[in-house]
């Protein structure tokens, strides 16, 4: 159990080319924090710097209040789970779990107890004598989790642990890791590129782009109040819709769209903005925005409808089965309290 504090972390592999820029983050004791972002955003690098596998170019990392910048990985009291499991192929499951403890000179009895306990939690007791190559992907990842658990570390680090699993197993393991967190109450830092994993697992989410934090917040916060256009487009599936337009007399104007925002006093005339609206916040066959149906994708429980408004392509998530013909003209209404505006020049949200 520990806090993790990252202070003004910078990382450059090649001089003056920062892959992580001024990264500041305080992680609370027992918190499940998810770093999410597109590939190459520096999220794995941050995790590896916390683990001590990567040197820090500039800044300070504290684990449990202790500066760890110059500590090797083994002395940081952390455990890490890797994307491709990283189990030792020549050792059976038992030895894989016991290896780290053996190196730390635990007694045989203590090792045995810990391994058995972890095996119990993860239900891998019956595989203990097997080699990793005899196990399926899901079983291997369980063993990798076990290897982290037996150490009873201060912090768990996960580097895209579910990316190699098939979709069904991923959902299942997602729940198991979450359950594990509830039981152990240990600080966990989880890296993923999958925004659904981030949304479903994290107490807080850190959204990264190009080595910089774009937003930190609870899943609902970042979903409902994205701090910028990137967060809006990255979090949520299908992604948030954006329409470029201009403000005039408190109204949002774009080709085919004219929405009164009732904010004449607060919005500057002539401001160029992007209007953001989530697919589920658009009602069909209501309102006055005219749209042409391009394609419908029935998913069973709901329907994804792609439409065209003026020049903008918009995706609608309609909460029932509706089949519309391509080329059909429909009207739309945006839920006014769910509309977000972003300044085109600064990418920052504009208060309505």
């Amino acid at each position, binding site marked *: 159990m520990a806090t993790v504090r990252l202070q003004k972390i910078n990382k450059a592999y090649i001089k003056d080319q920062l892959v992580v820029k001024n990264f500041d983050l305080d992680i609370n004791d027992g918190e499940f924090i998810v770093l999410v972002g597109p590939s190459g955003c520096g999220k794995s690098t941050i995790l*590896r710097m916390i*683990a*001590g*596998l990567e040197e820090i170019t500039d800044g300070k990392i504290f684990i449990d209040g202790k500066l760890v910048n110059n500590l*090797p*990985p*083994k002395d940081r009291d*952390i*455990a*890490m789970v*890797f*994307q*491709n*499991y*990283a*189990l*030792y*192929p*020549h050792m059976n499951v038992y030895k894989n779990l016991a*290896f*780290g403890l053996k*190196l*730390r000179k635990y007694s045989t009895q203590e090792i045995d107890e810990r391994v058995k306990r972890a095996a119990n939690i993860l239900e891998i007791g019956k595989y203990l004598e097997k080699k990793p190559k005899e196990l399926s992907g899901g079983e291997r990842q369980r063993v990798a989790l076990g*290897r982290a658990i037996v150490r009873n570390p201060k912090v768990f680090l996960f580097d895209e642990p579910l990316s190699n699993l098939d979709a069904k197993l991923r959902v299942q393991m997602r729940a198991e890791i979450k359950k594990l967190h509830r039981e152990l109450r240990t600080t966990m830092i989880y890296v993923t590129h999958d925004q659904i994993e981030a949304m479903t697992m994290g107490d807080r989410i850190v959204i990264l782009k190009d080595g910089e934090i774009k937003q930190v917040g609870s899943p609902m916060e970042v979903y409902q109040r994205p701090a910028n256009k990137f967060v809006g487009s990255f979090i949520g599936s299908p992604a948030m819709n954006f329409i470029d337009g201009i403000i005039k007399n408190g109204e949002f104007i774009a080709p085919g769209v004219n929405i009164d925002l009732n904010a004449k006093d607060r919005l500057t005339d002539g401001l160029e903005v992007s209007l953001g609206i989530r697919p589920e916040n658009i009602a069909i066959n209501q309102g006055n925005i005219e749209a042409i149906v391009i394609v419908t994708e029935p998913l069973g429980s709901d329907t994804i409808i792609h439409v065209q408004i003026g020049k903008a392509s918009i995706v609608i998530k309609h909460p029932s089965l509706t089949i519309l013909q391509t080329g059909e003209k429909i009207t739309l209404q945006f839920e006014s309290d769910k509309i977000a505006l972003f300044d085109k020049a600064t990418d920052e949200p504009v208060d309505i």
Partner: protein
Amino acid sequence: MKSKIKKIFLISLLAMLALMFIYPFFWMIGGTLKPEIEVMNFSPFGSSWSLDSYRIMLGKIPLFRALFNSIIVSLVSTFSVLVLSSMTGYALARLRFRGRSLIFNVILFTMVLPFQLTLIPLYVLMVKFGWVDSYAALIIPYTMSAFAILLFRQFFMQIPNDLIDAARIDGLSELGILFRIFWPLSKPALITVGIIHFMGIWNEALWPMIVVRKLSMMTMPQMVALYAVGGQAESQVGTQLAAATLMSLPIIIIYLVLQRHFIASMATSGLKG
């Protein structure tokens, strides 16, 4: 029908080639058992059998001492090559440091230099060190091998990075990672390097001839060469062949024991035999 004829033709051709290859070996063994007068006959089989050639040969030269020397030299050198070359290969494959590719290129370059070129300077060094007529002269120039370094480096580069990270977090040092994680995973490379190097140094005759004069320090190939060419065999071809047979025996035994691994390693280490 046509393909069957083709197959028969190919098989007989290969069988003939194999026979051509193996025949001198049988002839050598046959020659040691035949009466001296029949040794030069084409057939490996003689009119009677005896072990006289071996008896005469062993009476004339201290072959067992040479066998002992050869075993010591080959084992120590092979072990050292496995340890030191895998360490170098690990550093070149897995550690980031300044000048890494330069060092690697220099090591590669030494592979193209023929041994005959470095022979004289190396001999001068041995004399200066006072190592002539010692195990040091026989072993130390063979404690590293550029070929082994190259093979280990290539093999180690295929081992996933996460495995090293996991081992570091588990608390292994770099040497610990090499010997406790990489070695168990690199059995094919270790066996390949081990056998190739062992064969090479076991059969090495030129270098021992240069740095060793004392009979008690000589290795098998040197002793056999000296015996066969040096006049002690008194032109008795049978006894010369007996010495050669004894020399090749350990290699053949090792190969037969390890051949399954050897062929498998040749296939998996990406090295074409």
